């Protein structure tokens, strides 16, 4: 190794490469020594910043760790899904089922209260509560049926040849027109009943006509209403819930 640095003028590596690397290219020549590290201590500011970062991270871990439980995929304790906020005007079209299916489903929910007496099977209790299944009071005209739910019934009643003597409480104050329409449709089309759809329009008519009556019906008074009389109201398409031939909204 030579002790003095070669003259930079004469030692550029030319495009013609020479095998000896005693000729040192200027790039290497002008380089400084390889880097070293100095020993400045870590400042207080850095320590505080580090501490803040660790605290923030630790707090996040504390808040969302889900109990460190491999069975728990929920980061928050006691997770209950928040309900969808109610936004005015936003109707959620959840499913594409025919309208009648949804109408019947909701009617079934309303029927839950009726089921206490008339039973989920619609069979009632012998001697106590009359059945709705294949009952002549349910499956024939809607006017008689619509009339009786408002003030209820008191006294003896013959259903399917059996005699019952009790009280049916008034339903008119407890249920809305829509709910009544739904539950009446439900009972008219369940358990072998093959009745027509009851719409809200029809129930509104019934409420106008019979809703103000306070005195519960007796059998004789109910029989005065023709058995096949129907509440007036437009016919609806079971698929859409609208007048037949109308296109559903949004299509």
């Amino acid at each position: 190794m030579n002790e003095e640095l070669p003259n930079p003028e004469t030692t550029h590596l030319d495009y013609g490469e020479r095998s000896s690397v005693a000729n040192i290219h200027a790039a290497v020549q002008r380089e400084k020594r390889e880097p070293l590290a100095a020993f400045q201590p870590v400042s207080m500011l850095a320590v505080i910043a580090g501490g803040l970062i660790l605290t923030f991270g630790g707090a996040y871990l504390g808040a969302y760790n889900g109990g460190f439980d491999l069975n728990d995929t929920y980061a928050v304790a006691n997770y209950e899904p928040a309900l969808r906020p109610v936004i005015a005007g936003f109707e959620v079209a959840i499913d594409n089922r025919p309208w009648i299916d949804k109408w019947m489903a909701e009617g079934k929910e309303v029927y839950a209260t009726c089921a206490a007496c008339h039973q989920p099977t619609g069979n009632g209790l012998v001697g106590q509560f009359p059945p709705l299944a294949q009952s002549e009071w349910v499956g024939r005209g809607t006017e008689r049926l619509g009339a009786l739910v408002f003030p209820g019934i008191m006294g003896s009643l013959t259903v399917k040849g059996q005699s019952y003597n009790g009280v049916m409480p008034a339903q008119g104050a407890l249920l809305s027109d829509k709910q009544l329409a739904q539950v009446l449709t439900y009972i008219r089309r369940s358990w072998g009943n093959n009745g027509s759809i009851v719409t809200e329009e029809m129930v509104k008519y019934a409420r106008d006509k019979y809703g103000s009556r306070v005195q519960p019906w007796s059998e004789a008074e109910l029989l005065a209403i023709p058995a096949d009389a129907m509440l007036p109201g437009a016919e609806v398409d079971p698929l859409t819930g609208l007048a037949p031939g109308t296109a559903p909204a949004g299509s």
Partner: protein
Amino acid sequence: MSTDTTPAVDDVHLRARIDRSLRYPLLFFFTSAAAWLAASSLLGFLSALSLNAPDFFERFPLLQYGKLQPIHLNALIYGWAMQAGFGVSLWLMARLTRNVLRNPVTLVIMGHLWNLVVAVGLLSILFGWGTSMPWLDFHAGLWPVLLLVYIGIVIWIIGMFAARSERTPFISQLYILASVFWFPWIFLTANGFIHQDDGSAVMKAGINAWYISNMIYMVLGPIALAASYYIVPKVTGRPVYSYALANIGFWSLVLFSGWTGMNRYMGGPLPAWLPTVGSTATIFLAIPALAVLYNQVKTMEGKLAWANYSPALRFAFFGTISLVVGVALNIILAIFPLGKTLQFTQAQGGVDLVSVYGFFTMTMFGAIYFIVPRIVGCEWPNGQMIRFHFWFSAYGVGAIAAFMIFAGMAQGHVIGNYTEEFTTAVERGKPYLAALAIGWFLIGLSNVSFVAQLGLMAIRRGRRDEEGPTLMHKKPEDYFTNELVAEKAAKA
């Protein structure tokens, strides 16, 4: 500390020998990597375009986003990033351990094999054998081969370290060691767990996400840090500001990064503490990021203006800033209150690009601009072209990052508003996708400059080095590199 930065004569000769021994392997890695980067930029452009103009791309059934995007990403990671990393870490390790590379031919062969496997892998995605697992998209049979080739390359790095002359390693060597230690382990783990027949399907997705984050912060990141920790003190002629801080930065990175990644699936069907631990570790990554930034800024104190002139310094410093920005953005994405709207939008892709392109790639550019003149014996042809490369890359990655985040906010807002139709989110996102295409186009342009200059250097057609290094602007009077050159300038 002495201000004398002139190296000893022996040192200079040794460095020349080291550089000479590394010439062909490094040129191979750098030119391959640059070619893959150009391809990846084009693919990134096409990928963003395919979402903007899907009807146009109907005539090319293979050019659909579900294939273009993984091919673009995998070319960027395995084609460009890993190979640039190989070249830079080989040079750094050789220089810092003062070891001449004994067997360059083996490395070149390994490099060819790497290119082959990557090419086969990308073609496998194109022709329908892709796995749809981000960053692990190659056909499942290829990963063992890739791993073996990787080991065949880094074994030389480890060997050089083992044969080092100085006992105390410089911080860069520690980072490189960590990286070559980490990749085989995470690659083997991720592929091993994911491609087994049984095992929890959701955990496999979680491991995939863990792999991505570890690739960024423990494989690619340390190589970039090794490079910037070398370049900043080297170019400015100063020692690294604080050894303690450098160590804190290293060990905190190593300690925390391994836990990150699963936060990408926060709120998902994973045991909740796994993503949350990931989020916490991501928050903790602010410590190494800020430590590195502080250390490098303090090292450059007073000479910050040199970033105007030195390509290596400018690119490397941009990289360090991008590291901090990337970590900050990842933190935002990782915590529920801020991140839940941005999850599953374009935002995460943009933030990953800040890390992979803004941080890693720009630092690699800096290292390559520093290294290549030393291994080919001539200087970069044109400082203006380097400036062009820098600004178009900076604009490109900045535009991509900004627009992807805004896209995330727009899409996230609409998708989060469950009363709005999903197609509204798609329509809102479209202008941002156009911006993404433009961003890749700018990057592609910048790569043209880079590839052109690199090609010229590879065939030794660079500038002759009478006036010193190629700088990005005309240097001021007091920009002396060492006494030797100062003397010469005084004599002239």
